[in-house]
């Protein structure tokens, strides 16, 4: 099993969810996060006041999928979250040792 973590632009969330749904991935955890990579923060001026925006709003999507499907999921996220601009985000793929469904104690891929 693989865990896929995708940090994406907030306005791409719906598109990414649709793309994942299109390949049969319904289960995911979505978190509102803040951060920056190379994009860094920036300064904004409004009414003469300067605001430093260090950490930009992003969305983190986490899902655990069978190993055989990990590439397909990554491709779906890549295609749907891409704009080509700095700030598009990152995808991380991690090994998962075990998954357990709390309701009935199913384990492994049966718990996904």
């Amino acid at each position, binding site marked *: 099993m693989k865990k896929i973590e995708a940090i994406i632009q*907030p306005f791409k969330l719906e598109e990414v969810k649709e793309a994942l749904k299109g390949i049969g991935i319904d289960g995911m955890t979505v978190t509102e996060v803040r951060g920056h990579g190379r994009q860094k923060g920036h300064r904004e001026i409004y*009414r003469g006041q300067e605001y430093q*925006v260090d950490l930009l709003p992003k969305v983190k999507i986490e899902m655990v999928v069978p190993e055989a499907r990990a590439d397909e999921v990554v491709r779906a996220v890549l295609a749907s979250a891409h704009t080509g601009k700095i*700030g598009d985000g990152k995808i991380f793929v991690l090994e998962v040792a075990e998954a357990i469904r709390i309701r009935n104690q199913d384990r492994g891929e049966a718990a996904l």
Partner: protein
Amino acid sequence: MAKPPYETEREQLRRRFLSDGDAAGALAERSRQAERIVREAWSEHLAPAFPSGLCLAAVGGFGRRELFPHSDVDILLVSAQPLESSGALAAFVGSLWDQGLRASHAVRTPAECCRLDPQRPESGVSLLDRRYLAGDPELYARLEGALARWLRAERLELARSLCRGARARHARFGNAVHQLEPDVKESPGGLRDLHLARWLERLEEAPAREPGSPDDPAPAWSLLSRLRCFLHYRAGRDDNRLSFEAQEELLEQDFAPWRDAGELMRDYYRSAREAWRRALGRLEAWEGRGSPLWIQFRAWRARVSNAEFSAARALVWVKAPAQFERDPEALWRLFEFTGRHGLPLARETERRVEALLPGLRTAWSRGEPLWPPLARILALPRASQALRAMHQTGVLKALLPEWGEADCLPIRDYHHRYTVDEHTLRSLEALEELPCAADPLRRRLAGLLEEAGDPTALRLALLFHDLGKARALEEHTPHSVKMAAAALGRIQAPGEVIEHVGRLIERHLDLSRLMHTRDPEDPATARRLAERGETLERLRELTLLTYADSSAVHPGGLSAWRGEQLWRLYLAGVRQLTRELETERLPRLAAHPPPLAAFLEGLPARYLRTHSEKAAEADLRLCRRALERGVAVELEPRESYWSVRLAAHDRPGLAAALAGALTAFGLNILRAEAYSNRQGMALESFAFEDPHRALELNPSEVERLKALLERAALGRTDVARLLANRPPPGRPSRRARVEPAVSFDSEASPAATLIEIVAEDRPGLLYELAQTLTAAGCNLEVLLADTRGHRALDVFYVTAEGRKLTPARQAALREKLLAACRPPTAP
């Protein structure tokens, strides 16, 4: 292994309830079953060991014979002497659990029963619902006597403890009856509130019977107990949350009379509202007791009280109820009092208003102009409190029948926590709470609210924004617009207000949708925002509308993360709309008649967004007169300010001269706009206050001002000399002071430099700024000035010798503009 007999009986009871839905029967039967088991266990284990000196009582729900399927069975063992741990007692309790009964027992002496434990006030409360089951009858009689004496002596303390607990419980649920997934026991308006009303009633010296208890079942108790019974059977435990899933399952039951979940929940809210009102009535009555006379007198004479209404215990009371019959305006004054001080009506006051409803409906159906009193309420600082009071008493529905369609209307949406009416009122409250916010984001939004000025249209847009959900859940916005227009038209609201409100409702979801689907940094998003927002003023209102709407979805509806997204979007829209002031000029529009098209050509696109065709034609006539005479002026009074429009051949220093002339006349400029068309005609408009009412009281002054403005426009009067004769203005309090800020942007437009100035407003400021720019050789291509409170927000697009300002010129100008922003020191 065979189930214990009690389990079998319980299963039969469950089946019977799920087929007939008879909660009263199910609760009474379960109480009988439990009673039989408890008595049997008593006879077997405790009676032989304690032939006297011990008795058994049912308390709490068991005492009321109101034992829900998975509620604990509360029993009290009363012992004449403190009871040491006993094998018989352990066997008694063990046997109850073995039978499948979740027994919760306490052992106390009569003296211990007559003691209020501040840490566990519920133990004292549970004794209010007690009945004898078994054991020493003399001991029980002693307990009854002692309890009667104790309750007489301590009833005030016990009632206070109950009131405190109830208020804390209500607060845990946000004091909201209208929740989409309520807890039918603990939520405001749940079964606990019916019990509370009953307990507080029993603590009265001479209790008056009210319906609403199992002894006298009212519709509220009947429905709430049926729902709770079902929820227990559904979950197999003491679960009281009427979730969306539970609502769906309930509809499938044979006994369910509801066609859909909406009908079920509306039934629930009606019952919950009845329970809530009954509990509030009792709470308010008890909370007012026991304080020394002088405290009550002081409350009566509280500073906010007036001759008609008093504010006591943070509630509004009517001093002379007969007044409502003598003077119909008194009702409006009551709501104005509420909206001014932000205090809810006492239940007693609500009852008096409710009694007026039949008469009000008849009077209002005659088509009276009801807009003026509503407008007065909407302009008050705590208008939401007045609207809530009007909603709770049924007055809002009588005034705006369309509002009635949202009454208790549930939304089937996992994001929403409240019904449409509750969500709407909470959105109005969210907006009003902004000025008190401490976090940086809300402080910025509070600044927008201050800049937005008159909140009437914004509040009306919030009041109507979701009403269309009563007619179509998905595409509700067009319905909301129609309902707002119909309701406001009926009460004879001004046409421009109806149009303004309609525009805001029509676009109330725009920013939310853009936040989810568009990159705020993308120029296309900014263009889209400008297209939909149309003007800076409307974008500001839409941002506030989005904030209030999102905040009222559920308590964390607008997280800091989402708020930041909203702010970024607003900034992108502001930048684009400010840029467009200069860059987006109207072409010759074929859709208009040639003279109008020629007049419009070259004006900023904003002009057509802020002017109707009728207004544009009036400006065209003004320009024609100016072509003949060199200048033309129109001056007219508005509701709370004066408006002047002036057309003249454009020339350097024109805007400064006009601003100076108005200031020299003793008038305060609130807003100003200045731009010119392709033909070189300048169109200048100012909104100003006349603090001394000179124009209103002396009609000849109107002509004198017009003449002065004409001379100023033609350069035939020395404005600087006139201004020198004016006394220096006073400064606002320290708290209202604004630090001046000047910013330049040469990227905003291909041909001009944008200058934005924020400063503390004072008479003559706009003149000083415009004069500083003119004196520095700048030409004002566009001017947009606005004043809110003590803050002036001025935007200029300027050129010097037909080009943008160089960095060196900007640096020099910055210092001069900052100096102009600072108030002159008194001589």
